[in-house]
C-alpha cells in the first residue's frame, strides 16, 4: 500500500522535453503558470491549450500519467466550480431553490476549472520529465544569484536532494515499523481522532529515532569523503545549455508575449 506512492512521479522515457535543461523547464513552468493569469480572453485559453497539449505530446508521457496529478485537486475543483456556478449573479439558466445557475456563472466556473486543471497538468509535465536530482540541480543553479545575498543556496539544494533520496527509504521503514507494532496488537484503524493520534506514537517515535540515526550516519559518511559544503565543489554532470534550450526559451518568450497580447484582441 505505502509502496504505491511515487514522489516526483518521474516517468522515464526519451523525449525532447526530457532532454531539456531543468532550468529551461523551471522557467517554462513559471511562464506557463503566469500565462494562465495574464489574460481572460478566449483566445488566450485556446493558445494555452495548444501550448500545453503540444508540450505534453512532445514529452512522450502517456496521458494517463499526466492526469494522475488531478486526483489531488478533484475536491477543490468540484467545490470552486459549484460555488461559482450557482452563486454568480447574472442571466439565469435554471434555479434550484435559492441556487441560481447563470450564463455568467457557467462561463466563470468553466474558465476557473480549466485554469486549475492546466495549473496541475503544467506542473505535472515538469515533474514527469525531470528527475528529482535534475530538479535540485536546476534550482541550485537557477537560484545561484541569491548566494550574493548570503542565502545558502547550495546547502538548501543539498538538503532537498537528500530529503528526496530518503523519502522511499523512510516510507519502507514506516511500513516495517507499522507491521512490527501490529504484530504486537497495535491498532491504527479504529477509534476517534484522539485515539488514532495516540496510536501513532508507537509509529512516530521509532521513525523519528531512525531518521535521526540515518542523518547522523550519513553526515559522518559525507565527512569521511571530505564533504565540506559548496565551496570549490565541482559537479559530475554540470548543467550546460544546448541548442534545444535556446529554441525553447525563444518559444516561451513568444508564447508569453502572445498571451499578454491576447488582452488586446476582441475575443
Amino acid at each position, binding site marked *: 500500500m505505502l509502496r504505491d506512492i511515487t514522489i516526483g512521479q518521474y516517468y522515464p522515457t526519451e523525449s525532447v522535453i526530457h532532454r531539456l535543461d531543468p532550468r529551461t523547464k523551471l522557467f517554462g513552468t513559471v511562464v506557463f503558470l503566469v500565462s494562465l493569469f495574464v489574460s481572460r480572453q478566449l483566445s488566450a485559453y485556446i493558445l494555452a491549450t495548444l501550448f500545453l497539449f503540444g508540450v505534453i505530446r512532445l514529452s512522450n508521457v502517456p496521458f494517463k500519467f499526466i492526469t494522475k496529478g488531478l486526483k489531488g485537486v478533484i475536491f477543490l475543483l468540484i467545490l470552486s466550480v459549484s460555488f461559482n456556478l450557482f452563486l454568480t449573479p447574472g442571466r439565469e439558466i435554471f434555479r434550484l431553490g435559492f441556487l441560481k445557475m447563470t450564463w455568467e456563472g457557467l462561463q466563470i466556473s468553466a474558465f476557473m476549472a480549466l485554469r486549475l486543471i492546466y495549473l496541475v497538468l503544467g506542473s505535472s509535465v515538469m515533474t514527469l520529465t525531470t528527475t528529482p536530482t535534475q530538479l535540485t540541480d536546476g534550482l541550485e543553479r537557477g537560484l545561484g544569484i541569491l548566494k550574493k545575498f548570503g542565502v545558502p543556496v547550495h546547502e538548501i539544494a543539498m538538503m532537498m536532494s537528500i530529503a528526496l533520496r530518503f523519502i522511499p527509504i523512510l516510507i519502507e521503514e514506516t511500513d516495517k515499523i507499522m507491521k512490527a507494532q501490529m*504484530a504486537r*496488537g497495535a491498532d491504527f484503524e479504529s477509534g476517534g481522532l484522539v485515539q488514532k493520534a495516540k496510536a501513532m506514537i508507537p509509529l512516530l517515535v*521509532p521513525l523519528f*529515532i531512525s531518521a535521526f540515526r540515518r542523518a547522523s550516519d550519513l553526515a559522518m559518511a559525507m565527512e569521511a569523503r571530505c564533504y565540506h559544503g559548496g565551496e570549490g565543489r565541482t559537479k559530475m554532470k554540470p548543467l550546460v545549455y544546448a541548442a534545444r534550450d535556446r529554441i525553447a526559451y525563444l518559444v516561451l518568450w513568444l508564447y508569453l508575449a502572445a498571451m499578454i497580447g491576447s488582452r488586446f484582441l476582441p475575443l
Partner: protein
Amino acid sequence: MSIRVENLTHIYQEGTAMESYALDDVSFRIEDGSFIGLIGHTGSGKSTLVQHLNGLVKPSSGTVYFNEEDIFAPGYDLRALRGKVGLVFQYPEYQLFEETVLKDVMFGPRNMGASDREAESRARTALGLVGVEEELFEKSPFELSGGQKRRVAIAGVLAMEPEVIILDEPTAGLDPAGRDEILGMINDFHHKKHISVLLVSHSMEDVAEYADKILVMKQGRLMYFDTPKNVFAHRKELEEAGLSAPEMCYLADELRAAGLDVDPVMSTVEEAADEIMRALRERGAIPAAMA
C-alpha cells in the same frame, strides 16, 4: 496449537507487466511443540511467508489455518491471532518506543486487553525469560546496548504469551557470542514454556543445532520440509538454491573421500568431533579406551 498452510500463493503487482510470485503454492503443517527452521536465499519468500502466518499480509490464493480455523475468513479476529502467533521482525530493536523498558514490554499484553497489573506481571516474566536484569526495567530503552535492546524487543512479543513465536533472523548483526546467547535463550524458553518456534535463518549451522525440521524455500516455492539430516543430504540441490549445507558436512565429504567413514550429514562441530573419534576407533587407529 497447529498452523496449517494450504496452497499459499502471493503475487506482487498482479496483472501488471512486473508481476512476480513471492510465494507459489506453498503447503505445510507445523505441529505443537516443534522447533522449525526456515531457510532460503534472499528473496526466496521467507519474510513474505512468515507475515501471512499472523495475518499481516493477505494471500492472492490459498489460506492459513490456525488451530484448524481459516484466519483469512471474514470476521476472524486477526488482532487476537497476533497475540497467539508472535512475530519478531528482523532488527526488532528499532521498534522500541516507550519511556521505560518495562512499559515497552507491557505494550503487547495491554493491546491484548490485559489490565495494567496483569500486563506488568507478564512483562516482568518475559524480561526474565530473555535475561534482562531488573535494574534496567525503569530505564529508557534507548539507553540500552544493541544486544539488550534486542532482548527487550523479543520480550515484548513473549509478554503476550503466544503459543508459537516466529523469529526472523534473530541473530542478524550479532557477533558469534551474541548469536550463541540469543539462540540458547530461544531454545531455553522453547523448552521452559512449551512455545513452538519458527526460526528464519541464513545460517545452516544454527538451524542444524536446534531445529526438529527445516523448511527450505527457493524462489517462492517450498523445496523441502524434512529433518535437518535429510535436508543436508541434498547438497547439490541446496547449492543450486543459493544455500549450502553446514560446514561440517563438507568436511565429512572430504574425510569420506580420504577413506574415513564418518556420517555424511554430521552438522555441528561437536557432532563432527564425536563422529571422527568413533570412526577412528572403529578403524583401530586409536585405542578403544579413548572416548
